[in-house]
Protein backbone atom coordinates (compact mmCIF):
# COMPACT_ATOMS: atom_id res chain seq x y z
CA UNK A 1 0.00 0.00 0.00
CA UNK A 2 1.21 3.52 -0.77
CA UNK A 3 0.57 6.41 1.59
CA UNK A 4 0.42 9.83 0.01
CA UNK A 5 1.81 12.86 1.82
CA UNK A 6 0.99 16.18 0.27
CA UNK A 7 3.30 18.62 2.04
CA UNK A 8 1.36 21.76 1.09
CA UNK A 9 -2.01 20.30 2.09
CA UNK A 10 -1.08 18.18 5.09
CA UNK A 11 1.91 19.96 6.55
CA UNK A 12 2.50 23.54 5.47
CA UNK A 13 2.48 25.76 2.42
CA UNK A 14 5.51 27.52 3.89
CA UNK A 15 7.82 24.86 5.27
CA UNK A 16 10.87 26.50 6.85
CA UNK A 17 13.71 25.81 9.19
CA UNK A 18 15.69 22.78 10.18
CA UNK A 19 15.16 21.92 13.85
CA UNK A 20 11.96 21.91 15.89
CA UNK A 21 13.02 25.06 17.70
CA UNK A 22 13.25 26.95 14.42
CA UNK A 23 9.50 27.26 13.87
CA UNK A 24 6.20 25.50 13.35
CA UNK A 25 6.92 23.74 10.03
CA UNK A 26 10.52 22.60 10.17
CA UNK A 27 12.33 19.73 8.49
CA UNK A 28 12.85 17.83 11.72
CA UNK A 29 9.18 18.04 12.65
CA UNK A 30 8.13 16.91 9.18
CA UNK A 31 10.49 13.94 9.33
CA UNK A 32 9.58 12.85 12.85
CA UNK A 33 5.85 13.61 12.99
CA UNK A 34 4.77 13.02 9.39
CA UNK A 35 7.28 11.09 7.32
CA UNK A 36 8.37 8.43 9.81
CA UNK A 37 4.78 7.65 10.90
CA UNK A 38 3.79 7.35 7.22
CA UNK A 39 6.69 4.94 6.66
CA UNK A 40 5.58 2.94 9.73
CA UNK A 41 2.06 2.64 8.37
CA UNK A 42 2.90 1.96 4.73
CA UNK A 43 5.61 0.21 2.82
CA UNK A 44 5.63 2.94 0.18
CA UNK A 45 5.16 6.67 0.60
CA UNK A 46 4.56 9.13 -2.18
CA UNK A 47 5.48 12.68 -1.25
CA UNK A 48 3.96 15.51 -3.25
CA UNK A 49 6.25 18.53 -3.22
CA UNK A 50 4.08 20.88 -5.29
CA UNK A 51 1.94 23.60 -3.79
CA UNK A 52 4.38 25.17 -1.37
CA UNK A 53 6.06 28.52 -1.86
CA UNK A 54 9.43 26.80 -2.17
CA UNK A 55 11.78 25.04 0.23
CA UNK A 56 15.00 26.02 1.86
CA UNK A 57 17.75 23.52 1.26
CA UNK A 58 18.20 23.20 5.05
CA UNK A 59 14.57 22.03 5.43
CA UNK A 60 15.01 19.40 2.72
CA UNK A 61 18.32 18.17 4.09
CA UNK A 62 16.93 17.77 7.59
CA UNK A 63 13.66 16.17 6.49
CA UNK A 64 15.06 13.71 3.97
CA UNK A 65 18.83 13.55 4.46
CA UNK A 66 18.05 13.11 8.16
CA UNK A 67 16.33 9.78 7.46
CA UNK A 68 19.61 8.42 6.16
CA UNK A 69 21.86 10.14 8.72
CA UNK A 70 19.74 8.74 11.56
CA UNK A 71 20.03 5.29 9.93
CA UNK A 72 16.25 5.09 9.77
CA UNK A 73 16.54 4.11 6.09
CA UNK A 74 19.41 3.10 3.87
CA UNK A 75 19.81 4.78 0.49
CA UNK A 76 18.44 1.74 -1.41
CA UNK A 77 15.48 1.58 1.01
CA UNK A 78 14.85 5.27 0.53
CA UNK A 79 14.81 4.85 -3.23
CA UNK A 80 12.58 1.78 -3.03
CA UNK A 81 10.05 3.10 -0.52
CA UNK A 82 9.83 6.82 -1.18
CA UNK A 83 8.51 8.32 -4.35
CA UNK A 84 8.93 12.06 -4.81
CA UNK A 85 6.43 13.82 -7.05
CA UNK A 86 7.07 17.31 -8.37
CA UNK A 87 6.45 19.41 -11.43
CA UNK A 88 7.23 22.89 -12.70
CA UNK A 89 9.11 25.05 -10.23
CA UNK A 90 9.23 22.19 -7.72
CA UNK A 91 11.30 19.80 -9.86
CA UNK A 92 14.52 21.32 -8.54
CA UNK A 93 13.54 20.46 -4.96
CA UNK A 94 13.12 16.83 -5.93
CA UNK A 95 16.65 16.91 -7.33
CA UNK A 96 17.87 18.66 -4.18
CA UNK A 97 16.40 15.88 -2.03
CA UNK A 98 18.07 13.22 -4.18
CA UNK A 99 21.36 15.07 -3.79
CA UNK A 100 20.92 15.38 0.00
CA UNK A 101 20.14 11.71 0.54
CA UNK A 102 23.10 10.67 -1.60
CA UNK A 103 25.40 12.96 0.38
CA UNK A 104 23.96 11.69 3.67
CA UNK A 105 24.56 8.12 2.55
CA UNK A 106 28.11 9.01 1.61
CA UNK A 107 28.64 10.61 4.99
CA UNK A 108 29.45 13.97 3.42
Amino acid sequence: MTAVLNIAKEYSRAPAGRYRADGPATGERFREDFLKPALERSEYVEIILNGTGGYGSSFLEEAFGGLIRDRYLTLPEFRRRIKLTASGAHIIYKRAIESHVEKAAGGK
Partner: protein
Amino acid sequence: MAASPAETLFPELGTIAGAAFGYILGFASQLVLEWLSSSRNQLSARLDELCADVRTAASAGCEYWLLENDEDNLLLLSAQIVGLQHAIEGMIAHLNSRIELDESTSAERLLFIEALTGGKFQVVGRPLERARIMQIHAAAAALIILLKKCRDDALRFQMR
Protein backbone atom coordinates in the same frame (compact mmCIF):
# COMPACT_ATOMS: atom_id res chain seq x y z
CA MET B 1 -3.55 30.17 -76.46
CA ALA B 2 -6.85 32.03 -76.49
CA ALA B 3 -7.42 34.67 -73.83
CA SER B 4 -10.01 33.86 -71.18
CA PRO B 5 -13.17 36.04 -71.09
CA ALA B 6 -11.92 37.73 -67.92
CA GLU B 7 -8.61 38.57 -69.60
CA THR B 8 -10.47 39.91 -72.62
CA LEU B 9 -12.63 42.14 -70.45
CA PHE B 10 -9.84 43.12 -68.02
CA PRO B 11 -6.48 42.80 -69.83
CA GLU B 12 -4.54 44.01 -66.78
CA LEU B 13 -6.17 41.57 -64.34
CA GLY B 14 -3.08 39.31 -64.31
CA THR B 15 -0.77 42.20 -63.47
CA ILE B 16 -3.10 43.46 -60.75
CA ALA B 17 -3.49 39.96 -59.27
CA GLY B 18 0.29 39.47 -59.35
CA ALA B 19 0.86 42.79 -57.62
CA ALA B 20 -1.78 42.00 -55.00
CA PHE B 21 -0.25 38.59 -54.39
CA GLY B 22 3.20 40.15 -54.07
CA TYR B 23 1.86 42.73 -51.63
CA ILE B 24 0.12 40.08 -49.51
CA LEU B 25 3.25 37.92 -49.52
CA GLY B 26 5.42 40.87 -48.50
CA PHE B 27 2.97 41.90 -45.78
CA ALA B 28 2.76 38.35 -44.43
CA SER B 29 6.56 38.01 -44.45
CA GLN B 30 6.86 41.28 -42.56
CA LEU B 31 4.29 40.12 -40.01
CA VAL B 32 6.18 36.86 -39.47
CA LEU B 33 9.50 38.70 -39.10
CA GLU B 34 7.96 41.17 -36.64
CA TRP B 35 6.43 38.32 -34.66
CA LEU B 36 9.77 36.50 -34.56
CA SER B 37 11.58 39.65 -33.52
CA SER B 38 9.03 40.40 -30.80
CA SER B 39 9.22 36.82 -29.56
CA ARG B 40 13.03 36.98 -29.43
CA ASN B 41 12.96 40.31 -27.61
CA GLN B 42 10.45 39.00 -25.10
CA LEU B 43 12.53 35.89 -24.44
CA SER B 44 15.63 38.00 -24.05
CA ALA B 45 13.85 40.33 -21.62
CA ARG B 46 12.60 37.38 -19.54
CA LEU B 47 16.13 35.96 -19.33
CA ASP B 48 17.43 39.37 -18.25
CA GLU B 49 14.78 39.48 -15.50
CA LEU B 50 15.77 35.99 -14.47
CA CYS B 51 19.44 36.99 -14.20
CA ALA B 52 18.41 40.08 -12.20
CA ASP B 53 16.45 37.85 -9.80
CA VAL B 54 19.51 35.63 -9.35
CA ARG B 55 21.60 38.73 -8.49
CA THR B 56 18.94 40.01 -6.06
CA ALA B 57 18.70 36.60 -4.39
CA ALA B 58 22.50 36.49 -4.10
CA SER B 59 22.57 39.96 -2.49
CA ALA B 60 19.80 39.04 -0.06
CA GLY B 61 21.64 35.80 0.70
CA CYS B 62 24.86 37.61 1.51
CA GLU B 63 22.98 40.03 3.74
CA TYR B 64 21.29 37.13 5.53
CA TRP B 65 24.48 35.19 6.20
CA LEU B 66 26.28 38.30 7.48
CA LEU B 67 23.49 39.47 9.78
CA GLU B 68 23.57 38.68 13.47
CA ASN B 69 21.18 39.15 16.38
CA ASP B 70 18.42 40.75 14.34
CA GLU B 71 15.63 38.18 14.26
CA ASP B 72 13.12 40.41 12.46
CA ASN B 73 15.46 41.20 9.61
CA LEU B 74 16.66 37.60 9.44
CA LEU B 75 13.04 36.49 9.10
CA LEU B 76 12.39 39.11 6.43
CA LEU B 77 15.50 38.20 4.46
CA SER B 78 14.94 34.45 4.70
CA ALA B 79 11.39 34.86 3.39
CA GLN B 80 12.69 37.05 0.57
CA ILE B 81 15.39 34.53 -0.32
CA VAL B 82 13.03 31.55 -0.44
CA GLY B 83 10.51 33.63 -2.41
CA LEU B 84 13.12 34.68 -4.96
CA GLN B 85 14.51 31.17 -5.19
CA HIS B 86 11.03 29.90 -5.94
CA ALA B 87 10.33 32.71 -8.42
CA ILE B 88 13.54 31.81 -10.28
CA GLU B 89 12.48 28.17 -10.43
CA GLY B 90 8.98 29.16 -11.55
CA MET B 91 10.33 31.31 -14.36
CA ILE B 92 12.71 28.59 -15.51
CA ALA B 93 9.83 26.12 -15.60
CA HIS B 94 7.72 28.68 -17.49
CA LEU B 95 10.40 29.42 -20.07
CA ASN B 96 11.40 25.80 -20.49
CA SER B 97 8.79 25.25 -23.21
CA ARG B 98 10.59 27.85 -25.36
CA ILE B 99 14.19 27.41 -24.35
CA GLU B 100 15.75 24.36 -22.73
CA LEU B 101 16.90 25.64 -19.34
CA ASP B 102 15.83 23.06 -16.79
CA GLU B 103 18.20 20.18 -17.49
CA SER B 104 21.10 22.30 -18.73
CA THR B 105 21.19 24.53 -15.63
CA SER B 106 20.17 21.96 -13.02
CA ALA B 107 23.60 21.40 -11.46
CA GLU B 108 24.33 25.15 -11.17
CA ARG B 109 20.88 25.81 -9.67
CA LEU B 110 21.39 23.11 -7.06
CA LEU B 111 24.72 24.67 -6.09
CA PHE B 112 23.10 28.11 -5.92
CA ILE B 113 20.21 26.87 -3.78
CA GLU B 114 22.57 24.98 -1.46
CA ALA B 115 24.78 28.07 -1.09
CA LEU B 116 21.78 30.32 -0.41
CA THR B 117 19.56 28.18 1.81
CA GLY B 118 21.67 25.22 2.90
CA GLY B 119 23.54 24.63 6.14
CA LYS B 120 21.89 26.33 9.09
CA PHE B 121 19.56 28.51 7.03
CA GLN B 122 16.50 29.48 9.11
CA VAL B 123 18.04 27.88 12.18
CA VAL B 124 17.50 29.96 15.30
CA GLY B 125 20.78 31.46 16.49
CA ARG B 126 22.66 30.25 13.44
CA PRO B 127 26.30 31.34 13.32
CA LEU B 128 27.64 33.85 10.79
CA GLU B 129 29.01 32.08 7.74
CA ARG B 130 31.33 34.42 5.95
CA ALA B 131 32.56 31.64 3.68
CA ARG B 132 29.09 31.42 2.18
CA ILE B 133 29.36 34.91 0.73
CA MET B 134 31.97 33.74 -1.77
CA GLN B 135 30.03 30.53 -2.44
CA ILE B 136 26.81 32.44 -3.11
CA HIS B 137 28.39 34.90 -5.52
CA ALA B 138 30.40 32.20 -7.29
CA ALA B 139 27.28 30.05 -7.71
CA ALA B 140 25.22 33.06 -8.86
CA ALA B 141 27.87 34.03 -11.41
CA ALA B 142 28.07 30.48 -12.77
CA LEU B 143 24.29 30.33 -13.07
CA ILE B 144 24.02 33.73 -14.78
CA ILE B 145 26.74 32.82 -17.30
CA LEU B 146 24.94 29.59 -18.11
CA LEU B 147 21.54 31.29 -18.45
CA LYS B 148 23.02 33.82 -20.86
CA LYS B 149 24.74 31.10 -22.83
CA CYS B 150 21.44 29.20 -23.11
CA ARG B 151 19.77 32.40 -24.33
CA ASP B 152 22.46 33.10 -26.91
CA ASP B 153 22.32 29.51 -28.17
CA ALA B 154 18.53 29.63 -28.40
CA LEU B 155 18.47 32.98 -30.22
CA ARG B 156 21.18 31.88 -32.63
CA PHE B 157 19.13 28.78 -33.40
CA GLN B 158 16.01 30.89 -33.99
CA MET B 159 17.90 33.06 -36.51
CA ARG B 160 18.63 30.06 -38.75
